[in-house]
């Protein structure tokens, strides 16, 4: 059996389903459609979810359209539906709203997930301010958005990242 966690809840599938895509499981069986299908070949990163292997806890972004269920055995997955507790928005979600960062919004969940992972990592291991732009580019630079030209996404994430660094002193 392949056992994994999604948004805190455990799931098991038979090993014979190991070749199935994670995004299809999220959509078809859990009705978690916040993770968006766009290219299906792991390039656009709209389908980004957070994956961590307990007990380490440090999350990395994975592209669920190109992740087989067999590779998430023992992994804890967090999707866009699972990032905010009690309906409260993350600071980066609030910043995306404040900055009008997205337009059609189809890529937004992927950006949120990648940004959240980046900001959590930044809080744990801050970088020098002069390295922040490069760090942001590494975090979301591969994400594709067709509507916005990325300017406002970067503005919003930079604002939140600087606040994280400010807090860290």
């Amino acid at each position, binding site marked *: 059996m392949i056992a994994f966690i999604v948004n805190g809840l455990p799931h098991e599938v038979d090993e014979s389903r190991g070749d199935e895509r994670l995004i299809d499981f999220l959509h078809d069986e859990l009705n978690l459609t916040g993770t968006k*299908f766009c290219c299906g070949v792991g390039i656009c990163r709209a389908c980004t979810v957070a994956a961590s292997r307990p007990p380490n806890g440090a999350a990395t972004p994975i592209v669920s359209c190109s992740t087989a269920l067999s590779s998430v055995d023992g992994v804890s997955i967090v999707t866009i539906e699972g990032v905010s507790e009690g309906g409260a928005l993350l600071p980066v979600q609030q910043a995306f709203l404040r900055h009008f960062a997205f337009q059609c919004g189809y890529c937004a969940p992927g950006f949120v997930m990648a940004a959240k992972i980046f900001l959590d990592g930044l809080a744990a291991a801050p970088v020098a301010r002069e390295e922040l732009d490069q760090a942001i580019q590494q975090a979301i630079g591969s994400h594709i958005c*067709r509507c916005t030209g990325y300017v406002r*996404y970067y503005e919003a994430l930079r604002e939140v990242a600087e606040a994280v660094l400010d807090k860290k002193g």
Partner: protein
Amino acid sequence: MQVHRGGTCGVPFQRRTFLKGAAGLVGVTIMGVPTRGRAEAPLSAPAGGRSTPGVATMRIDGRAKVTGQKIFARDFNARDMPGWQATQWYGFYLCALTTEHVFLGLDLSSLPDRVKPARIILGDQLSAAVRKPKLRRWRDPLVERRVRDLQAAAMQAPAGAGFDNPLSGEPDLIVPRGNVPDFLGQAVALLMFDSIARYRAAKRFMQFRDAEFQIYALDSAAAKGMNAPFPPTTTYVKYFQGGETFSYATANNYKDEINNYKDRIATFLSGHKEFLTQEFDVSRIAMDPMFMEPEAGLAWHEAALGTLHLVLGTQSPDGDASNIKSMFDAADSPVRLKEIRLTSCYPGGGFGGRDSSPFSLLLALAAAFSDGHPVKVAYDRFEQFRVGLKRPAAALQGALVCAPDMKLQLVRMTINLDGGGLKNLSPYVASLASLCAGGSYEFPMANVFAQSVHTRNIPGGSQRGFGGPEAFLAVETALDDLAAAQKWDPIAMRRANLATAASLTVVGGPIAQDLQLAEMLDRVEAHPLWAQRDQIKSSYPARGLVYGTGIAMSLQAYGTSGDGMVAAVLIGPEGRLTVQSDAVDMGNGSATTLGVVIGGSLGANADQVDMGCSTLFGQTRLEESTDYIPHWKDRPFWTAKGVGSSSACLTGLHQVHTVQQTATALMAGAVLPAARIVWKRPDLQLADVEWVDGSLRERGGAGRASSRAELAKAIYDAGLPRGALGHAYFQSKWVEGDFETPGGTRRLSLDGLAFYGHGQDKPNPNPVPRQNTFAPDADVWRYSRFVWAPCVNVVGLTVDTTTGRVQIENVLSVLNAGRVYVPELVSGQSQGGVAMAIGYTLFEDMPVGMAGPANGRWNLDKYHVPRAEDLPLSASYAPGRRAQELIVMPETPGDNAEGRGIAEAVMCSVAPAISNAIRDAVGRRFASLPITPAKVLQGLAQP
């Protein structure tokens, strides 16, 4: 605040309009997506909790999008839809591999049992009406008049006089066995699956293996109509010399005199040997809109009720419903339709690619063959590339003729678009491209021809810019070459020829707007990106790069030759305000804009905005006729056009106007009479009152003040209207009329008005006759367009002459947007447009034919859309920083307190600015898009 797609007005009802067909009336209801009681963020929520009327601090749909809620068609399955049968089928189409051999059928014998479809539908199993539906195009009266004239001429032609396939209908939705496919990607079969596991397994098994499953005859054959133009073509000849005038818009016998005036132009030029001629030959390949959500939808034919349920993200919900009804209209239809219930979802991007897309027909067709189960059709990205509507490839040749004093004399241009296998909207694109051939300039003479040609390629249609970008690419690069050859300053050259409010276009129609083109050039000249371009340039060779600066202008014409819009504004019993529009928000933010523009009239932003309400027009009870005979004076319930497709450029002027006028009607017809009752002031007039901090009070501060809630209670207690429904028509001017309201007679820039009463199970507003109508002159449609969104772009870029790579360093866009309602949305459209233009100018490349996406193997590994590193990301220019800066011109009195439709405006001149900048950098013209590194190196290698 709640966001609904074609919502419910807080009352359980069915919004209906009726489409008349051979089978009788078919009801069409447009529904909102099923909400789950989500709390939505208020439209604007500054500290303190009270929103500022007219100001948006975030997108109205933002919270739903940033939290991944179900709002896109792709998100939904039957289990999510209230009242739907839960068991869902799945369908996908197999696509034609050739247009040169007869399709004989399928061979699925190699499919293992676990992937075999439950049903296979072939084209010859469909009735003619289903296989080849009659599509209604009601998009642009100018173009449709020409089609009507062609059809009339064809009917009068002698039998056998000509091949009229382009006039006679559409290609088959599914190619019948024994026929040659009309275009690559045309469907040859529909495979239906009764389980998701089997469906997914089949897609995986069959992907990239098309040739194994399709059988074609060995002998060569040809599809019909190839290389014939889709009608109508467009010819604009203009001759304004020595007091003599001739143009499409002004001549009484235009068609008969075209050749005569072409000769006159030639004669005039032959008498001016001193004139300078700058030839041009530019081209661009087709472009994929690459919106992020591949087309997907649900359909369910509930046979017992004769209802077809659809869930779709489309820019043209009313047009789609009409065409689906037409498909199932014949007596031998596989389904009986009494009603179409369309849930209109937010599209995950559109850019024109979801306007009149064939997807809606293919989805509806699947519902006829799913044994009564709901069916989902969802393209993956390979399929979307394979069949999705493209920006047509374009080739433009011609010349600019100029006097030695820089004054432009003539634009001569031939525009050929590759329309692909479906007519779709490409002739309309060609028509607008012809108008845009005049650019931002006054030309006394013009000779422009444009056509969209039927080819075997993936169909092309409406895309952002709608022909404008193609024309501006030709004009602006030619101008630049001319200026360079004559050693003229490129801005001085443009200044010498700028169109003004007094100018006439190449069509002969008036500009009649305050464009501020000269002032925009002033801003450019003063900006360091232009003013210091030589200094900036000098810093790059040390880095092994060459730098160039390019400028280009665009005068994008938005709207069509006659536009109808509809909107409703409602007030709930506690004062909650709802705005409803037939328009679709595809990400441009029209829902947000329409929510705040009522702030001036009603003292608050909308609490709820419903988009995609395509049944609103039916509620107006306005009669719409297609015979082009105006009845403004004699029919008080008549309009020249109901509604059209949603283009992002129709928000700033058209949709805003309609919502604002409707809000004024509600104010006059309900709020004012309520205030009279509450304040016991029967003489109160609208001019006597104002909204202050959410309360209505008398101007001057004396007298009572009432909250909106108090006034709403009075409205409901007195049975005053709880909402207003307005329809507006724009054709160079807005139609106006006097309307009787409970608050008195009110003159409005609407051509239709109705008021919603109380106690109705279904909305059934009471229409008010229009009186004392002012209407545009009957012939203004000949102007083609009436409103303009000017922009100037300056691009600074580097060229690596060893790799051929071009990098955009800086972009400056100066935009005339008129009145700006939500600045963040305007700048967002600018940034997105710059990105898209950089993409198709430098990166996005795909061959035609089976070497390209038509082979089903194309994805983002092959089609490179810009990523962040490809674009300048700072929002303001500073030396050493890559930035894209937007300057929005201040509003002027000439804007009449109205906005402009700018969704396309900034994008339109970026490509020629890039080409001009490359020429400045390396001294060579690259006029074939995309300008790839290989092309740059090839060009540099030439002597």
